[in-house]
């Protein structure tokens, strides 16, 4: 049983790659966001956390750890989509292989903006207002929060990864780069 952490900035394609991998492998996929709602609450929450020192350890991942342990008991391979990876003390011992999806910040930003716009187009009016507000906060925070945080993530989380994958090209090409790192059984 192995746990592969897929890390990267917002908009780097973690979810897309995890989904594509799950179609190739018989594996469980877990997403840190589902256990750590701070990042899905508001851009302001993220800014406040970052300005207070950005302490990763303050997030309690006990439920995520339990979920990973359950998943590893039932599956030979678990994919963990995560912002913090080995930087978080609770996750570090669980992660066997950590991959960093490397994309230039402008591409990550545009991908995120595109995703929010699509949500905006498809959502109910009240959701749309919330999504639009999220987008505005995200843009406002770019210089002082988001970009420094991306830089930190790239340096620290990327630096703790076993392999940094160029995630700029198509999904197929990204998977091609990962092939030699993954288990043989497809």
């Amino acid at each position, binding site marked *: 049983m192995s746990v*592969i952490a897929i890390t990267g900035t917002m908009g780097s394609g973690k979810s897309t790659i995890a989904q594509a991998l799950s179609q190739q492998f018989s594996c469980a996929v877990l997403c840190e966001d589902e256990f750590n709602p701070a990042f899905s609450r508001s851009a302001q929450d993220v800014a406040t956390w970052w300005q207070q020192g950005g302490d990763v350890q303050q997030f309690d991942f006990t439920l995520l750890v339990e979920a990973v342990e359950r998943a590893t008991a039932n599956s030979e391979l678990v994919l963990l989509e995560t912002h913090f990876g080995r930087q978080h003390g609770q996750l570090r*011992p669980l992660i066997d292989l950590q991959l960093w999806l490397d994309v230039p910040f402008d591409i990550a930003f545009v991908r995120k903006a595109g995703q929010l716009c699509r949500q905006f187009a498809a959502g109910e009016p009240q959701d749309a207002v919330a999504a639009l507000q999220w987008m505005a906060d995200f843009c406002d925070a770019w210089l002082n929060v988001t970009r420094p945080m991306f830089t930190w993530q790239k340096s620290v989380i990327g*630096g703790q990864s076993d392999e940094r994958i160029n995630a700029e090209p198509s999904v197929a090409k990204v998977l091609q780069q990962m092939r030699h790192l993954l288990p043989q059984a497809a």
Partner: protein
Amino acid sequence: MDEYRPTLRLPKRVVLLGNDVFAWIASSMLLSRFGPLGIRITVCPGGQSAPSRAFTTTPAFGRFLKNLGVDEHDMLRACQGTYCLASQFSDWAHEGRDFWQPIGQFPHRLLGQELFDVWLSERKAGRLLRPLHSYSAHWTASLARKCPQAFGGESAFQDSGEYGYHGDLSGLRDWLRQLAMANGVEAVEGPIDRVFPNGRGGIAQVKLQSGQAVPGDFFVDLRPGESEDTEQRVMTVRQPGVRQVPVFTRCVATESGWVTVTPLADQTEYRLIYPAALTTDEAAQQQLRHVIRSSVASQTDEMAQVQIEGCGRPAGIDWRDNVVTVGAVTDRLETFSGTAMHLHHAAIERLVSLFPNRRVGRATRTEFCQRTQQMLQQNDEFCQVHWRLAAQRPSAWGQWLSERTGDDGLLAVYDQAGLISPRDPQTPPAWQYQSLLAAAGRLPQRPQLSTATLPPAETGRLLRELVKHNEALVADLPLHEEMLDWIHSRPFPESQAG
């Protein structure tokens, strides 16, 4: 017969020629051995100070401090010092891949086997994705940014002494100088004007430009070799430090060289080494800027003052009559930080160990030179294995490196069965080769036969337990920056109570 005919008695006055930290380390080592016998130790600078740069040490330096009976915190305070538990290598084997070399051995054997053999067996069976270095407590502590020292309590790292330091070389030099002189080492100031031979191929005395004569009956020349015929250049820049000080050195391969990133208490030093024939200084500066920009340390394009030096090939070890020349040991380009200081220690220790024996003759001198030279060559072999990994990169630098690395003979047995032949005790042991090669993806063709009977479920369980054990080992240690706050802040005021 020569072995039994002494040409050198126990010296009365030892003169060290050199101006940098290595001369002061050697003076303290010689003093601790010769001081009680009433032998005078004199340091004669004889040249300009080398520009200051950051250093990294191996555990040997901690043992040296312990032998001197000094507090490591005093040393760290004097040189912007920080702790070091590992080296991280980025982009060496190919771009995007990182691997780690912990300072200190993987202490674990599992099921009666070496950890490497167990790991390899599991890896080859397709049951393991986790890299070998991730079973090291040093790696765990590096990622958790934990200090190897505990506040008052004990720590596994403290007990074993398996950690090193980073610091500023000129700060360390001044501190060691002060320490040595307080203990009785003499120092004379000023450049050397003339060296007077003793008629047997050695030195009778040196005369300074001030007119002062410094006689001696034994001389140790620690001055680095001339660096006019430069093949490689070194570009150094310091940037403001970061709050969360890494507890490891980082070594990043670039298009045409490598950058060593050394964290000091208040600054971070970036040091690019590049072949002068391949890269202009302007292009090198761009590469250095790129590495700095990609780190958290700097959010600015402003480059602090850049310092460029040349570095030549170090000269050989020599011992003629009463003069030992070991500057070659210190004048080396390191991919593995701390190597030069480690080799310097080993050479001086080897030299000092000869002296209770009063029969130091030609045979002893030849043996010392040969053994020390061999130690340097074996370290170079290890360095070349590292270069060979970088030579895989499709670049002019890769080509340049491949032209300078020897054949793969050393690794032939490793490639077959994971074994590395025994080395000099002062050179990297087998596990360091295994760790380096495995991390870079070069695995032996097959695991040891003795691992074939390992029960997979039990092996997997024990490997997972090992990871948890390492986490528990570092859990209660303070953060590196917390310890640095303690060390580098002013002393706490004395209690007013009572």
